[in-house]
């Protein structure tokens, strides 16, 4: 597919794509060379993101979540990787930008990483790290200082608390707040959060999630929120995209998907969420097959080997995303029926503790 | 004990030979290349330990008038390829030495008389010299003693291709370059039942201490060296030392062609500047050396007490050095020596002492042992060239000519004084002892006046050997006549 006509695609078969979105990802394909073999980490993924919106990316390990996040920010390593498709931000095709333009663009798009500690250079002082982006953008010293103070304040820290310290002198939660401050300092309007709370304890996690949500609201930020914890994604996302082995298998409003997933894989993911509800003695499941090697994906639907509903069609034809009755889009030949019609054992509403 | 046949001996040498070319002869010190060549070729005549020229492969080399010399060969001697060791063969060999293309060290010496050779019969070669030379036989023993099968020599295109086909006591068995040379008994040796040994091996060990330890432990039969090197090892069980009764001098060459030592005052300054007894002490790390006063030892029949070398006198040395400096001849000495730690120490001592004089300095250049001769004799890139071993000087010839004559083989410093040549010729052209002594007296006078060489020590050579080594017969002041060696049942070294 040609990358210069994303609007055609969006207008055509994929109704979930909007022309007015800030970020447009069209037919993104990322492949890595592994020795002789080409390995598609992301295949033909299209989505978009409007200002102030949060998109949750879920999927199991290796499904390509991080790769998508990095590809958006043009951070996929140069050697051994091939990018296909187009990524535009506010009508700028990122691939065609010059270095200088891209550097300017980075003011607007930022990233937060999973491991707060390792996303800081252990040998540098945190104040410098938070101000680094501004320095790179060539901001004068005083202005820089002001912006750093502001960013620190936004995440509930102050210069006095961080001055002269290095990353290892902070706890995980504090580091993650500093990481957010680093991203915020540039004043971006979009942030890719790659599992920002995965390594944090529940109490700290809640804290960071709240913080992100508040900032998002205050600055009208667009977020891409990558996580494998569906509960967290539920909390933060307006829309959710489910990835399986580099392909997008379901995308739609979070409410729709969580209420009634259409793709059997999404269903499985939801079923696997540990729910703090002792009332429900969880029935021991039969245990599905393990994921297939991504180097040689199965023909047709990639999920079919683990799918209870798979049939001959699934083996032959790779399903494309199509609108579901529930409202979301799913790539499945035999999508799950809408809520109420199916025989899912899962109760619709989950009880809350007192 | 009477000699018995059988057995093996290993002689340790410091470095390996470079070819089997019989024309390559350089110094008859034990442990040198000639020691190895002797085993396969055998000396045609040799100078025995009393200084008398004795028949070796040949029966005799004699002359009535010191001009016409007759070489009598033995009957039935054959090279190992079956070719006869006859007058033609000898003539061929010597003519080959005389040919500049052979690049033999003694080319100049042999070329002087090579045209005078005449084969009288297969066992007789007559040599007519251009001038009388009483020392001719001794010089042959030193400079052109080895005769190889002419056939073998003709076949070889390169020196390195020459196969050792001789008529000596042993036959080459294997040569492992830089490791060892193994030889086995020549069953057709002319002097049966000699040689006694079944096998003779030369092993290469450059490190002096390792050499000594090897002999002490019985890993080898003998090595040549000096008592100062042996230390307490000479008293170890199973080993003995044997003195080779020669008087040898330690010497260094002054460069007469260029540099400060072309001025005789500088040579005198050098003599005065250094206490030679102490120099020897630094060299050997032993005490009790008295500096030699003359080319001849005090016990030599030619010694003339009227002449003696300058003795240690630092004040005089400084005076001379300053005078030289005033003449625009700074006393800068470049010492060339080879990489032997004793010699390094010696050179360092010289440097140390010289540098302590005002206006004097010294630098040291070390070269590989094999390259010393190239550096000094050929390239003349030195002021003072220090050679390691001692040179026989108790008998007058042939070394005195080699050292002091302008065309002398060992005259590395290119000392050239017609008076000296005349005096040496005078000594050589007569067999009258008083005339010889008178001539040598002149030589001594010139040595003391001209100071052609730096003569700094007197030593005799020693062997460190297993005490059951019999038949140790030295020739030419060093080299063993290997056909006599035999293994004793009990300690038998005197």
């Amino acid at each position: 597919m040609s990358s210069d006509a994303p609007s055609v695609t969006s207008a055509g078969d994929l109704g979930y794509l909007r022309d007015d979105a800030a970020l447009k990802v069209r037919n993104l394909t990322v492949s890595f060379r592994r020795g002789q073999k080409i390995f598609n980490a992301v295949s033909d993924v299209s989505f978009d993101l409007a200002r102030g919106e949060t998109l949750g990316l879920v999927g199991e390990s290796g499904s390509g979540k991080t790769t998508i996040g990095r590809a958006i920010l043009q951070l996929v390593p140069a050697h051994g990787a091939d990018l296909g498709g187009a990524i535009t931000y506010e009508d700028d095709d990122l691939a065609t930008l010059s270095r200088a333009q891209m550097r300017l663009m980075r003011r607007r798009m930022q990233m937060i990483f999973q491991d707060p500690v390792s996303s800081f250079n252990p040998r540098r002082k945190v104040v410098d790290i938070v101000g680094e982006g501004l320095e790179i953008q060539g901001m004068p010293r005083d202005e820089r200082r002001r912006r750093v103070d502001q960013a620190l304040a936004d995440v509930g820290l102050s210069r006095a608390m961080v001055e002269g310290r290095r990353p290892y002198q902070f706890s995980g939660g504090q580091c993650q707040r500093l990481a957010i401050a680093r991203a915020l300092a540039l004043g971006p309007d979009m942030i890719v959060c790659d599992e920002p709370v995965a390594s944090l304890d529940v109490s700290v996690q809640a804290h960071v999630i709240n913080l992100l949500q508040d900032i998002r609201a205050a600055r009208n930020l667009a977020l891409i929120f990558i996580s494998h914890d569906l509960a967290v994604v539920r909390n933060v996302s307006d829309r959710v995209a489910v990835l399986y082995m580099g392909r997008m298998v379901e995308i739609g409003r979070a409410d729709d998907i969580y209420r009634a997933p259409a793709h059997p894989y999404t269903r499985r993911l939801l079923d696997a969420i540990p729910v703090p509800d002792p009332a429900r003695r969880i029935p021991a499941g039969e245990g599905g097959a393990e994921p297939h090697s991504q180097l040689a994906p199965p023909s047709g639907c990639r999920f079919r080997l683990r799918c209870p509903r798979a049939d001959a069609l699934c083996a032959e034809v790779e399903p494309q995303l199509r609108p579901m009755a529930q409202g979301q889009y799913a790539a499945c030949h035999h999508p799950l029926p809408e809520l109420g019609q199916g025989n899912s054992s899962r109760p619709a509403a989950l009880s809350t503790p007192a | 004990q009477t000699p018995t046949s059988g057995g093996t001996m290993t002689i340790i040498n410091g470095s390996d030979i470079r070819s089997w070319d019989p024309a390559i002869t350089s110094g008859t010190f034990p442990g040198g290349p000639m020691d190895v060549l002797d085993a396969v070729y055998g000396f045609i005549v040799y100078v025995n330990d009393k200084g008398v020229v004795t028949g070796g492969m040949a029966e005799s080399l004699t002359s009535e008038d010191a001009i016409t010399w007759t070489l009598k060969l033995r009957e039935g001697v054959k090279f190992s390829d079956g070719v006869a060791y006859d007058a033609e063969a000898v003539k061929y060999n010597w003519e080959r030495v005389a040919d500049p293309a052979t690049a033999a060290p003694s080319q100049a010496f042999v070329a002087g008389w090579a045209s005078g050779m005449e084969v009288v019969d297969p066992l007789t070669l007559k040599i007519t010299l251009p001038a009388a030379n009483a020392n001719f036989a001794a010089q042959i023993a030193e400079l052109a003693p080895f005769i190889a099968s002419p056939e073998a020599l003709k076949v070889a295109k390169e020196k390195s291709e020459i196969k050792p086909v001789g008529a000596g006591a042993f036959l080459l068995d294997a040569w492992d370059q830089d490791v060892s040379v193994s030889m086995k008994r020549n069953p057709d040796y002319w002097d049966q039942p000699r040689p006694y040994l079944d096998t003779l091996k030369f092993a290469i060990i450059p490190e002096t201490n390792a050499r000594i330890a090897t002999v002490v432990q019985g890993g080898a039969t003998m090595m040549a060296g000096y008592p100062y090197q042996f230390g307490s090892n000479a008293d170890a069980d199973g080993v003995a030392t044997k003195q080779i009764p020669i008087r040898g001098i330690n010497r260094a060459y002054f460069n007469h062609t260029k540099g400060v030592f072309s001025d005789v005052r500088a040579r005198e300054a050098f003599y005065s500047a250094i206490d030679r007894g102490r120099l020897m002490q630094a060299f050997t790390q032993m005490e009790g050396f008295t500096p030699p006063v003359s080319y001849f030892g005090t016990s030599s029949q030619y010694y003339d007490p009227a002449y003696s070398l300058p003795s240690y006198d630092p004040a005089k040395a400084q005076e001379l050095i300053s005078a030289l400096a005033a003449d625009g001849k700074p006393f800068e000495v470049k010492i060339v020596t080879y990489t032997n730690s004793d010699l390094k120490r010696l050179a360092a001592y010289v440097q140390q002492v010289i540098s302590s004089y005002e206006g004097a300095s010294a630098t040291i250049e070390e070269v590989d042992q094999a390259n010393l001769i190239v550096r000094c004799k050929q390239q003349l890139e030195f002021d003072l060239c220090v050679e390691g071993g001692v040179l026989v000087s108790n008998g007058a010839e042939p070394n005195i000519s080699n050292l002091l004559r302008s065309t002398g083989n060992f005259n590395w410093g290119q000392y050239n004084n017609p008076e000296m040549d005349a005096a040496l010729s005078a000594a050589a052209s007569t067999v009258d002892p008083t005339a010889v002594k008178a001539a040598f007296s002149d030589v001594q006078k010139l040595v003391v006046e001209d100071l052609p060489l730096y003569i700094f020590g007197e030593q005799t050579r020693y062997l460190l050997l297993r005490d059951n080594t019999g038949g140790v017969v030295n020739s030419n002041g060093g080299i063993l006549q290997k056909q006599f060696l035999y293994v004793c049942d009990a300690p038998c070294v005197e």
Partner: protein
Amino acid sequence: MRSAGSTYLRAAGTRLLAGIPVFVLVTFAATALSDLMPGSAAQTILGENATLEQIAALNAEYGYDRPAVIRYLDWLGGLARGDLGYTLFSRQPVAELLVNRAAVTFEIALLAMLVSLLLAIPLAMVSAARAGGLVDSTLSAVTSFLLSIPTFVSVVVLSYVFSIVLRWLPATGWVSPFVDPLGNLMFVALPVLSLSVHQSAYFFRVARSQFAATLQEDFVLVARAKGLSTSYIMLRHALRPSLPQVLTVLGLSMTFLLGGSFIVESYFAVPGIGWTVLNAVKNHDLPVVQAILSLTVVIFVVVFILVDLGYALIDPRVQAT
């Protein structure tokens, strides 16, 4: 799954390919080196009285007057035919000489390796099992001392003690093990010991830290939770995972041992390649120098191929990359 055999072969093949440029680089440099040399082989062969014309003639005959590239190609051609030229003086075929001399060095190097390993590995296991204990701290002190002894020091000291003072071991020489096995052992004892001083300490350190690291692994904790005994855990669980690292070091130590052979062989007059190359360098015996340089590279490549194969044997995870 691909068959194990083909994986090994592929790993070895990769190494081999990587070795070729190294080989070319080194051997070509060796050829070109002779252009820098002040004294020439011809000079050395012809001796002191040679004239310039003679030297030039011989140089022409040996081909030293031609450009280095041509000489190199010639040399490569000879190599293909198994002809590496002849030694300068004794006219031994270099290839044959090298085989003999290399065997000596190999014997010493391998014995030194063996001795060091036999000493180091068990001690390292004991030491790591009781990390921080008395044995451990004593051994680590001793080895850090041994590690600091250069070969030229251990050579001097050991030979002084064992051959000059005690006279237990021969000071010099070598005899083929096929001729006199016991004598051979006596002769190689000092060279092997001298090399082992450093080597065993080195192996000990590597092995100890590797064992200690392995003992930190989760699977060792699991084994302990299973109630297995310490010695069982050491031998069955910790030993093998620690070996790849030791193997790497073993491979790398080949270069060290070859370097050490210069000192050891020249001091003990052992006719190995170290000895040979020292003499060849002195004599400007270029064919020998060049052959030894290429041999060294070949040894290095072969050793690392072996190390790779060793990994594959030890570590079930290793696949050809």
